[in-house]
């Protein structure tokens, strides 16, 4: 009896030892406390916010996550990085529908921290709470959680899952792509060529595909479309992973990912993610003109809120 007990406990000990590093990293990354600071709207004109009051998701079980991606290389203070990528994702488990809305990083908005500026600055001024509050007040949506990933984190995550398979819609050729990863001089640049068509991308080439914008007439909008493609490919690949892969994945992205989603919710979402199989039920939205137009202050993009808000309220009720 004692031997059996010792054997069972040893099996459990081996399993615990295997998963402890992943659990430790997961505890550090997950369940981040967010302070969503309401905007000091008394001081600033709440133009877009008048009709944009955040409402909780009325559909049972539906939730909205704000995905944030940042350049976090040595050019930036680690605590004050811009969010080069902002994607609102709404998931409706009952209908297995997913809607992704890319928010242009240069969109000129009323920031929750005060004043006006490009929306990518919200995170740098006040962290995830400010980014969430800015999106909530300007777009009139309720954000349940956020996930932030750093530049190197995305590269490592994709490598940790063995790369992704995507259909790159067009060749991405850039003479001035930033050479700020694995580089001693973060202001350097490099030439890149990601060719078109179905292919397997490792982390660094997937990053090049989603980050390059100089060779795309649609600049940030084209980049947003590519980011959504890669997100879907990551989701597809993640479905192939087994629990035994968790420690390696956690070690790869440790420190490069933060989220307000608790571990219990993550565990509940994993089987849910695997059940979303119909690509026709994944809606991808980009705020191209006429939803936005150029000419804003400091190279920013102006929003046409009269068009954006009805769109957002339709898909993010």
């Amino acid at each position, binding site marked *: 009896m004692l031997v059996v007990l010792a054997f069972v406990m*040893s099996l459990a000990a081996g399993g615990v030892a295997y998963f402890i590093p992943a659990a430790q990293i997961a505890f550090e990354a997950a369940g981040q406390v967010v302070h969503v600071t309401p905007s000091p709207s008394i001081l600033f004109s709440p133009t877009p916010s008048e009709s944009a009051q955040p409402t909780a998701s009325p559909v049972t079980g539906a939730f909205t996550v704000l995905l944030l991606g940042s350049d976090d290389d040595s050019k930036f203070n680690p605590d004050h990085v811009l969010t080069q990528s902002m994607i609102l994702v709404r998931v409706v488990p009952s209908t297995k529908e997913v809607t992704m809305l890319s928010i242009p990083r240069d969109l000129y908005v009323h920031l929750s921290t005060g004043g006006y500026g490009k929306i990518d600055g919200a995170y740098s001024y006040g962290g995830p709470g400010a980014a969430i509050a800015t999106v909530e007040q300007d777009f009139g949506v309720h954000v349940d959680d956020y996930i932030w990933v750093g530049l190197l984190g995305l590269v490592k995550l994709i490598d940790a899952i063995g790369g992704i398979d995507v259909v790159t819609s067009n*060749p991405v050729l850039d003479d001035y792509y930033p050479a700020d990863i694995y580089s001693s001089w973060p202001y350097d640049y490099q030439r890149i060529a990601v060719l078109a068509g*179905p292919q397997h991308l490792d982390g660094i080439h997937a990053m090049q595909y989603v980050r390059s914008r100089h060779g795309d007439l649609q600049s940030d909008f084209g980049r947003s479309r590519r980011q959504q493609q890669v997100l879907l490919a990551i989701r597809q690949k993640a479905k192939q992973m087994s629990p035994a892969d968790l420690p390696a994945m956690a070690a790869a992205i440790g420190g490069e990912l933060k989220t307000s989603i608790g571990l219990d919710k993550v565990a509940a979402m994993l089987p849910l993610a695997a059940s979303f199989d119909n690509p026709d039920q994944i809606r991808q939205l980009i705020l191209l003109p006429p939803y936005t137009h150029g000419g804003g202050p400091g190279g920013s993009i102006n929003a046409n809120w009269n068009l954006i808000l009805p769109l957002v309220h339709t898909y993010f009720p």
Partner: protein
Amino acid sequence: MISRFVLALGLAVVVLVGSTTTFMYLGARHSKTLAPPEKPTAATPRAHAFTLPGTLYLAQSGAIYSLSAGRFHQLTPEAGWAMPSMDPNGNILAIKYGSYWSDLYVLNPYGVPLLQVTSNRARSGMVDPSLNHWVFYPRVSPDGKTLWLTYDGLKCDGCYDVSPAIYSLPYGGALRQARAWTDGGNYTGGDQQPLPLSSGAVVYTRYDFASNIDSNLDNKLVGMLWYTNRPNAVGRALTGPGEDCREPSLSPDGTEMAMICTYQKQVSYLTIASWDGSSLGPRRTIVSDQLVAQPIWAPDGSGIAYLAPGEAAGAFQLWFLPKAAYAPPPAPPPPSPTPGGPHNGPLPSPSPSPAPAPVKPIQMTTNAGFDATSPMAWSR
């Protein structure tokens, strides 16, 4: 009565073995898709179950491999080599990637470089990036006289556009003799993958905004097959923006075109269409449940090889679709009643012949990881 020492020692051994075994077992249970690809020459099982005709050339991890008589041979080291194609002399044209440029070489059939055709690395390095160039997708015309390629030689001063165009030059000549056949577009990704025709014209993949073709369509970048028969002429679209097609390959008898169409989604379909020398007939999808890439016809017309993951989200493997899958032999005529004299009774109804079993694609490799952006070449 077991002594306490022995009992403690036994328990310690059990705990040690149990925990270590569990740890190692979990460590060995990684997903199959995380396993790095093996070299085709080492991959098991070998491609022995079905032997392809002739010699097929393809690229993996910067090396070019040949597949002949069921065996892979590594022709070049893993040093940035890709995009093999054949010249009429049996030599191989291939691209070699540098850090921020690529060059065209002619290799002998064993992979030994015979000639460097381009020198696209700028002496000033990245001081002026526009002085560096990319060359992709080399092809020699059917008459062996003209070299076709994709080249970013039309870059404008002071702008960021790097849209390559289709160029031609005398085969054996120098790049300075090259002339552009297309304009490469404007911030679109350019014109890619030329397919020279015996008529002297060329089919290629043009990337453009769908709204430039049809103002009612979304402003998405899509691929389309285009045709042009003289330099600097406005070409003609062979496929529509909604089809989002690329990677053309002409059948050995010149009557059918294979291509990859994605219909602007994250899927890809192996599509074939009849070809009359200047236009495509109705499309027919022959593979729809795989992420297919780079189709190429067998030189003896026995089928089409392509690259696609071996399992969901896995590395790209070599597949072969026998001709019977997309061009089934004609059904035998229905049996006629037994000849003979007058027959008063009811004629015997011919029993329907059993439907032929569907012909499925054959997976030729299992553990490889071929470069799906690199076209394959196939010689007799």
